[in-house]
């Protein structure tokens, strides 16, 4: 079996409020911390949904749209940059698992 790319894997996930273009992010990341004092920037590799990315200038960026609410970043970030919450059922994103 050919291994799937992460984008293909995330394409299998059912997200909530997909039709809404404006959503309220359930995780707030202070990327100023990531991009100033953080010695590892580990969220850019431990996140199973690749919500944290590093650009060519080694700057960390965060997007919440692909988040599958696993919680990994909340523990992995030991720098206080991740303010983690559950998505709002009405105006947030987050997942609805088909299998779970």
């Amino acid at each position: 079996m050919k291994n799937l790319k992460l984008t293909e894997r995330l394409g299998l996930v059912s997200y909530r409020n997909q039709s809404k273009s404006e959503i309220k992010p359930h995780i707030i990341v202070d990327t100023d911390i990531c991009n100033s004092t953080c010695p590892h920037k580990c969220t850019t590799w431990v996140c199973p949904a690749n919500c944290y990315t590093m650009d060519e200038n080694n700057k960390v960026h965060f997007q919440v749209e692909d988040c599958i609410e696993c919680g990994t970043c909340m523990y992995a970030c030991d720098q206080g940059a991740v303010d983690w919450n559950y998505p709002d059922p009405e105006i947030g994103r987050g997942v609805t698992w088909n299998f779970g």
Partner: protein
Amino acid sequence: MDEKFDCIVIGGGVAGLAAAMTLAKNNMKFLLIERGEFAGSKNVSGGVLWGSDLAKLVPNYWEEEDAGWERFINHRRLTLMDEQSAFTLDFKSSHFNEPPYTGVVVLRSKFDNWLSGKVQEAIDASDYAMDSFIATNIKVDEVLMENDKAVGIRTGEDEFHADSVIIAEGVNNLLTRQVGLQDKYVPADHMLTGIKEIIRFDQDVLEQKFQLNGLSGMSNEFVGWATDGVEGGGFLYTNRDTISLGLVLGIKDMREKKKSPHDVLNHFKTHPAIADIIKDGEVVEYSAHVVSSGDKRAMPRELYKDGILLAGESANLLMNAGKAIQGMDYAMRSGILAAETIVEAKKKEDFSSATLKAYRTKMDESYVMKDINGFQDAVHLLHTETMQQKVPNLICDFGRQFFTIKNEPTPKSKDMLKGAVKRHASFWELAKLGFKAGKSL
């Protein structure tokens, strides 16, 4: 819903539903709040529900045509891996064929939803058929506290009041932290990320592949090469027409070794033993969720306080001491015991910690805390590099020699074993390991 409830249960997972079922059967007036569209819609597990507590909640569940579970386990495998080989301890027995089964594989989106339907039936049969509710699509923002005692919950602008609150919110236990039972920041040290794919086959193909008969199923855990050097292990469980294939990976170790969970999953899937199994399958879901490790150092400081009880993964009740990954059965038992404590508190009309501490006693006397307390050394041992890397490598090395037939004189097995030990570890290391394992298991 102006009136006060006896109890508000936060979370429609296994712990919350077990608590709700027990409350309903005891004629309590309660509100179960689930933030997903339906119970199970936010939930992920490996997952095998071990033990037979499910039969206490839903008697004769196996007689139901389409109950929420996938397959019962009568075939257990534990596989040690190196890069090319897989050395498996394999046990299959018809002893496990009769209900109540000792383990059923579940997919949570289906199983929890089914169990939630059973809870609703129990509500309908109770004295509070019109006054107890399962409410979905509601996120609890806060547990309301008065004089350090829980009096209800707040969601947005709305408040609901109750004599007691059972927090069954799962491992990412924000409310447990809010009420002060756990620190605001929980470090990565004893937390892991579970990651898995659901892979679909034709049901006939799957049943032939794994030698399944009717609804029988197999569970397989993996140690060694599977995790690409990261602390953790792999799993494979058979569902009706899919398998759950995944890994559990230490978050701190991924941080330090710069490993991505999805890359490690790809790595696992390329192992020849796995690649041969999955080659004609189709991935239909990819998921991930944090789990705790069973290390007591990560657990909340207490399981109760005034008006509050913690159940399931909110209290980090999960353990893998080498035999099986147990979490949902701990959730179920703790949910039942929490609800029973609330029933007793209602009789006394006292929901203070003086009464609720009976939950702690019940838990300590149950197999859940007895096992968690009794197998801490095994948990620590299982997470050492020797157990995670060296032992699988040397066993596979030995296996390769033992099963190689050449047209030349065969060395004695003990010499093969000696050679394998020398190449991957030392006798001293193994002696220490054997001593620790003998004590801890």
